[in-house]
């Protein structure tokens, strides 16, 4: 366990050693801030049927910023080690492969959570300044941030998998960006293909991150996405572990 935490510590620190982390942080928060400002301004002009919190998590600004951050966070995790050759001292130390894989995954997840943490302040400031509630209930906050965690875990595991396949960070980023974008917007197909059967719509709806966000940000904690994303994360991590091991045979 100590070895895992040693690896994890290095992973998390390595994010903050590179300027990329701060650039991602600044621009992500900028987009989120602009998004928040737009939503409030928009809602100020007419009566709306949803809360500020729902509006914040369910719009195009949020979606684009959201799918973009994963390739940026995960592209380097394995690819950089392969490129620099640091994988050699790493794997000749007495550590297990799964310790390496999990430390990379949780390292990225921790950075992702650091990225999101400041957005919670938006709602706090909103309530302080306007003396209005930003969300329908506490459950809405829990729901939204729970889904961010679940979706984040799944997409980070996809990013880790893409990164283990190559020693080129750009290739890793493109693979994970393509896969994550397609998965994320899969749910939108039902609006484009109007003639799809209703059972097909149900299936697509089950995969639709946008739909999940719609439900959970209202404070309705649905267990289906929880099970879905948790199990998919585990599947992707197992695949990453397998791919990592086979890479050793091909080095």
């Amino acid at each position: 366990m100590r070895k895992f935490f040693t690896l994890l510590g290095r992973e998390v620190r390595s994010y903050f050693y590179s300027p990329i982390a701060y650039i991602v942080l600044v621009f992500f928060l900028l987009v989120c801030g602009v998004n928040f400002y737009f939503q409030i301004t928009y809602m100020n002009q007419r009566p709306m049927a949803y809360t500020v919190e729902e509006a914040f998590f369910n719009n195009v600004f949020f979606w684009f910023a959201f799918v973009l951050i994963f390739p940026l966070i995960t592209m380097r995790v394995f690819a950089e080690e392969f490129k620099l050759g640091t994988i050699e001292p790493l794997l000749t130390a007495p550590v297990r492969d799964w310790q390496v894989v999990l430390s990379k995954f949780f390292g990225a997840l921790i950075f992702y959570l650091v990225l999101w943490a400041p957005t919670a302040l938006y709602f706090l400031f909103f309530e302080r300044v306007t003396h209005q509630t930003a969300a329908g209930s506490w459950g809405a906050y829990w729901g939204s941030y729970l889904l961010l965690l679940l979706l984040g875990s799944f997409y980070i595991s996809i990013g880790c998998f893409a990164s283990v396949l190559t020693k080129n960070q750009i290739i890793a980023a493109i693979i994970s960006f393509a896969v994550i974008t397609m998965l994320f917007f899969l749910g939108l197909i039902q609006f484009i293909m109007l003639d799809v059967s209703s059972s097909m719509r149900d299936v697509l709806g089950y995969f639709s991150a946008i739909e999940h966000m719609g439900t959970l940000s209202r404070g309705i904690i649905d267990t289906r996405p929880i099970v879905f994303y948790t199990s998919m994360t585990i599947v992707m991590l197992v695949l990453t572990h397998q791919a990592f091991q086979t890479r050793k045979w091909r080095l």
Partner: protein
Amino acid sequence: MIKVENLTKRYAGTTAIRDLSFEVGQGEIMGFLGPNGAGKSTTMRILAGFMPPTSGRASVAGFDVFSQSLQARAHLGYMPENVPLYNDMRVTEYLNYRAALKGVPHRRVKERVGDVQELCGLKDVEKRLIATLSKGYRQRVGLADALVAEPDLLILDEPTIGLDPNQIRQVRELIKNLGKQHTILLSTHILPEVEMTCSRVIIVHKGRIEACDTPENLLGQIRQAGGVVVEAKTGSDNGVEELKKISGVRDVSSDVAGDWKTFSLRVESGVDVREEIYRLATARHWTLRELSQRRATLEDVFVEITHTEVSA
């Protein structure tokens, strides 16, 4: 300490090493010698548990490097070729991290890291970013990393490559001293290095072991096979042609400096051609200034071995 049996590694299309078998005993400094691409790094990577062999088996401290990889890795310190390091970390920080990763007990990390920094001459750069270090210092960080967990066995892949002559001397001294407590397997293609530091030598060529003995014995085998140096004024003669006619001379190269020509002769084992050369010189009225037999070096052993391989 190391036991290798019929080790073979094939990459797509090429065979890096074939059927390698050797043993390294406790406390030995084993030199692994061969031209570039002979399979030295491949063998060391397999021993360090970095990649599995295609066939055959290898064990370190009694643990199979493949099936008991974790225990085997816990017994060795490995310094890869070109020493890949995390550029964004500081020297002490990196060594602390490596020590923890290798299972050095928490309360001993500080002491161990201090010791290896002292030993490898890293004290004055301990707070520097690894990215800003020169090649020589990076090499020392790699060596400190290999040593930090006090392994029984050190595997060093080209430990002196890219260093300046002073640093090379220091590293050699260091390795010699380390050899008192550790078993060492080091690879190099620099011959004097092996002669100076190693107690036994394995010469690999094209993935095969060509020779395995002490440096003294290897030299003894071809003591005579060294060379003869002749420095003479040959007048109108070319010199090379005449010298080549002497039986036992394999190869002549010449170097001209004014009137004086220096000939380097490679001769066959067990033949002394100096008398013949003297006779030739008097017959052709050459002025001789030097006629000496060069002491055979491992270089000659090496050329001998790889030469026969090529002509075979």
